[in-house]
């Protein structure tokens, strides 16, 4: 069953002579229980695609439907609620709150979303699997790039979202960790019926994907 549909989405930035079209008539669906991988080179429009799919940006043309809700029809508040309760973002720029320790990044989620988060035990297992349990009292500035990336993954998964949108989640990781993260996302799809979309130029993730797409100059094709 498709929980995320991107229909005929076009995105242009700028006006007149400065106008650039970043996405052209992109069609895409993601289903629960599947890992979809979107592979493309730098500047091909991956992040733009993912943020539009998750309702952070609005498309110039076309529409996005999440679990049956057309995003354009939702109020800002409803979009926030949808994102908080059903969509987990793993952002390219990590995006942890700089003044919260790793532990508090999770505590913050508890404050704004009281139900449906991982249990303490599940969180502990997740942190162990990602190899970051010993970092819980550290601030983001005290983490390495790869550690930050893994914390960002854990933070997004902690919300236990139905849809996980990951932007280059393995860019700063070594092959060993790539396998761990790839397997983790794969297991989440299979065992917990999540819909997982990963955009990346990291071909090492291919073996964990159910479907692979290619994006090139803003055009998406099934690979």
């Amino acid at each position, binding site marked *: 069953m498709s929980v995320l549909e991107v229909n005929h989405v076009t995105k242009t930035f700028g006006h007149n002579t400065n106008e650039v079209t970043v996405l052209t008539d992109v069609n895409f669906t993601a289903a629960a229980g599947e890992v979809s991988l979107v592979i493309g080179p730098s500047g091909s429009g991956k992040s733009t695609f993912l943020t539009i799919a998750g309702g952070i940006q609005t498309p110039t043309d076309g529409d996005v439907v999440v679990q049956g809700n057309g995003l354009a029809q939702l109020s800002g508040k409803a979009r*926030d609620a949808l994102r908080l309760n059903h969509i987990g*973002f793993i952002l390219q*720029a990590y995006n942890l709150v700089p*003044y919260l320790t790793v532990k508090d990044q999770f505590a913050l989620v508890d404050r704004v979303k009281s139900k449906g988060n991982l249990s303490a035990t599940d969180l502990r297992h997740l942190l162990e699997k990602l190899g970051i349990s010993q970092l819980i009292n550290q601030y983001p500035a005290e983490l390495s790039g790869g550690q930050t990336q893994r914390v960002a993954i854990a933070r997004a998964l902690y919300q236990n979202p139905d849809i996980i949108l990951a932007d280059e989640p393995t860019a700063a990781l070594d092959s060993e960790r790539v396998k761990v993260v790839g397997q983790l996302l794969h297991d989440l799809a299979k065992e917990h019926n999540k819909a997982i979309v990963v955009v990346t130029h990291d071909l090492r993730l291919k073996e964990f994907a159910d479907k692979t797409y290619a994006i090139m100059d803003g055009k998406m094709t099934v690979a």
Partner: protein
Amino acid sequence: MFLALKEIRHEKLRYGLIIGMIVLVSYLVFVLSGLAYGLAQQNTQAISSWNASKVVLNSDANDSLSQSLITKQTADKVKLTTHEAYIGQAGVVAKAKGQAKLSAQFLGINQSQFIYKRVKVTAGHKPTTNHQIMVDDSFKDNGYRLGDKVTLNSTDTQYKIVGFTHNAKLSVAPVIYGTLGTWRTLSHVTSDFQASGIITNRDSFKTKTSGLSTLTMSKFINKLPGYSAQNTTFTFMIGFLMIIAMVVIAVFLYILTMQKLPNYAVLRAQGIPAKVLVTTTVSQALILVVGGLAIGAALTLATVLALPAGVPMSFNVPLLAGVTGGILLTGVIGALIPVKVILNVDPVSVMGG
């Protein structure tokens, strides 16, 4: 609250500096308004202590007690009740052997009338004869003691300090209470004159006697020499100070909020509702401003305790509440000016490539 406190704890230096600035600004406003109010009070303390409502003066006295003289003949036409009292004012220089000269306001009062009864004694007793006086406590601070013999102006007559009274100031000078007889001597007038004026504590008091005019206390106080000029100056000074203080605090909190926008964008991307960010911003502004005001108030209190008794400083609740409320309000407004920006903060702005 969670985010607000966590951030303050993590960025101790930055928030410490902002609280420090609010402390200094509120300290400045508190101390200056305390000094201005203290000075204003010294113009009128004695008058306030009588709880009077009107003053009757000679109609040619230009509303000034020190310029007014009421003859016995005129005074007799005014029917006095227990709510009225004669008062004779004379500016004097007091001197005792071995003590510094003090400029003071001599007030002659009648033992059987209400002012005499209302004046509070802090040591000794009230004067009962022409050669006895009761003086303001500030005489004590200048070394004068009970039983000291004091000369007033350049006459040789000696007056004995038989009592002290608290907070008796008129036109920023300490008050000396004595008899109306002594007032006549000091003013060089004969017993044809009854007093400088008549004070009443009845709102309904009226007299039609020609040659007399009746003033309300507030009008009388405003006509005290220098009083309204002084008050206008201080009101403007404190007003400007308040406005500048409020603008400075508002600008600081505005900048603070603007600097947080990248973090807010992160939180927005995570789906944290805009409402949480707004409450975080407001509660943080409140924590900073309340903290700063509290420390500023504590410093002010310490200053009051450390200042010598001669420095006039006093506070009144409405003034303090106004100052405090004004600073609080502008702090929150400053933090909230960018609220539209907070609500519209673009999560994409921080996501990078």
